[in-house]
């Protein structure tokens, strides 16, 4: 992992909000880094904190949310940011692509007007004409045919897949250093999904853009992301290179999640995970997944929530004490779980 040059770095970030039911912990001691030019996936079910982490990085959390720890984007600590600096940061440094492209665009403004606004917010010295040229350029880059005609169109005249490309173009006209995508393909059809992911991958290799994608679908993201961070109950469960995590998960939650997904072999039961994730209002002691975990032992009740590095596998971390307990020692004795 690279040192200080990370494009995004979260250190012990906690996010909590006060509700009528008590204090809800949305993120619990979350740390991770994204290196320049990297594609990182945040995977987890609803309530796992993956979207909260993205919103926190962009300072888009609802007012009243308390953030602890530090979030550094492109060398700047965003937590204390205010006023002009915060506006400039949101307009220029980091951009977000949301799940639903229909809601991300203003229905009464032409696509061109919205792209121009986006470009000039990032670079106020840009003239309207130049911004329009840049917008047309970006539409071509994201694969929109006849960009000039599209600039005059309104969002309702365009299909969902095209609209998501336009939303991505709207982020790109700001030439951000970091692109955050919250479930960018969930609202789209399978064939369109593949097209959008291919586009993100292409932008990453052509422009060296750093991308963080939050998703619930491990299968969709597997081919795109360099690294995978699996989240559960607002905490990081495990982290590592995507292929390694998918092939050899080091946390029982990841394993259960992969096995619960249907595959094409019919006739056998799906491996459902019984129960459901803890409420964000609950006080968690020990491993948050322990109550649903078939591998739990007494040590899990006192396990730390923060993942620890695995000594023998560089770049990988796991929050499962039953995995990390052996990793700390040199010649660790191992035991295989029955298949």
């Amino acid at each position: 992992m690279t040192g200080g040059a990370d494009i995004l770095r979260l250190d012990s970030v906690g996010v909590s909000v006060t509700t009528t039911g008590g204090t809800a912990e949305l993120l619990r001691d979350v740390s991770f880094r994204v290196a320049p030019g990297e594609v990182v996936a945040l995977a987890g079910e609803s309530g796992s904190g993956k979207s909260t982490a993205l919103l926190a990085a962009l300072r888009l959390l609802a007012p009243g949310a308390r953030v602890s720890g530090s979030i550094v984007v492109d060398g700047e600590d965003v937590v204390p940011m205010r006023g002009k600096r915060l506006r400039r940061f949101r307009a220029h440094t980091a951009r977000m692509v949301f799940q639903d492209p229909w809601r991300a665009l203003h229905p009464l403004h032409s696509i061109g007007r919205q792209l121009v606004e986006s470009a000039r917010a990032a670079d106020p010295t840009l003239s309207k004409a130049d911004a329009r040229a840049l917008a047309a350029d970006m539409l071509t880059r994201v694969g929109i045919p006849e960009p000039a005609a599209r600039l005059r169109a309104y969002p309702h005249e365009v299909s969902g897949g095209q609209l998501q490309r336009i939303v991505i173009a709207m982020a790109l006209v700001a030439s951000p250093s970091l692109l955050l995508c919250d479930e960018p393909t969930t609202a789209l059809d399978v064939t369109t999904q593949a097209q959008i992911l291919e586009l993100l991958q292409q932008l990453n290799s052509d422009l060296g853009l750093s991308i963080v994608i939050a998703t619930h679908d491990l299968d969709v993201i597997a081919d795109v992301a360099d690294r995978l961070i699996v989240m559960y109950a607002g905490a990081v469960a495990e982290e590592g290179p995507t292929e390694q995590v998918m092939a050899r998960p080091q946390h029982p939650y990841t394993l259960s999640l992969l096995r619960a997904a249907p595959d094409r072999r019919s006739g056998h039961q799906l491996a459902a995970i019984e129960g459901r994730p803890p409420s964000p209002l609950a006080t968690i002691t020990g491993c948050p997944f322990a109550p649903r975990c078939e591998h739990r032992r007494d040590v899990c009740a006192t396990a730390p929530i923060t993942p620890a590095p695995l000594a023998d596998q560089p770049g990988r971390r796991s929050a499962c004490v039953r995995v990390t307990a052996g990793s700390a020692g040199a010649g660790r004795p191992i035991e295989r779980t029955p298949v």
Partner: protein
Amino acid sequence: MTASGETAAAGEVALRVSDLTKHFPMGGWGRSRTVLRAVDGVSLDISQGETVGLVGESGSGKTTVGRTLIRLYEPTSGRIEFEGRDITRASGARLRRDVRRRMSMVFQNPSTSLNPYLRLGSALAEPLVVQRMGDAAWRRDRVAQMLELVGLDAAMASRYPQELSGGQRQRVGIARALITDPSLIIADEPTASLDVSVQAQIVNLLERLQRELGLTYLFITHDLALIGHISHRVAVMYLGRLVELSPTDQLFAEPLHPYSAVLASTRGTPEHRIIPAGEIPSPIDPPSGCVFRTRCPIARQRCAAEAPPLHQAGPGRFVACHFPGELGLSAAAHSARPQPADITFASSTTAQPQPVAAAPGPPHREKG
């Protein structure tokens, strides 16, 4: 249409759909009158106890097919036979008795398909009231029985929908669908709004209910992995037309229609993925000839001139394409992702399995 009689698997035919068409008027008069062809000439048989998966992109007409079959929509033309009766134009008491009691629907979003102001017991008993089945005491028993059947506590009847999790609400949705003792369930994206781990619970529940009650399912979804898991046969729709109907394994291994090949390839590795050009055309102004030709990698002149009819192309296999099987998958494309390996735990942590419930055990003696 000629082929549909032979599509039936071994069991008795539960539902026979012939040349079903549903058009929605989009306004205009005389020549400027426009029509949205949501469903265009769909023929399909479903056998008793079978699960047929209906897949397609949004706008392909799959939901309209489901809603027309249960007669939430009036068919424009065609014929629907259910349990040996023609229900195409059934109305009033016949509609209630022959269709609504014996066929029911599980909807996508359990949060919006349950009335937030009704206790679950009342919501569940409503179909019984409409059907005038039993008296109040019998209905209460039936509600309790149904809640237990879907894995919920009978005491849940006095709760409101918002007190439940998404997975529990969908269990209630299933219980409500089953309460009039139907034989056919139309499930329209029943797990699309649920998390993977909860989706697995619901899918397992649907499969268990099918085994126990001998139910027939029409399972509508855009999730190919799920359809591959749950269905015996798959019907693929594109722009209102049925383009292929095949046994599930064969559809994914050797798709006949180019659009099926596209779908089957999306779950493979990216190198082998077939990504079609452009987007699904508008059903108001569909292309001439074959509806898929504007995006088809193997389209030729003939495809623009004549629309290919659905015809038999092998035992149990039907396709609407002039060149079936030509756009195949490479061998590597249908290798599913390997299952993840088991976790190796450190032996120092293997001792003392924790009891499942926090039952008070014998007092623990500590040294020192």
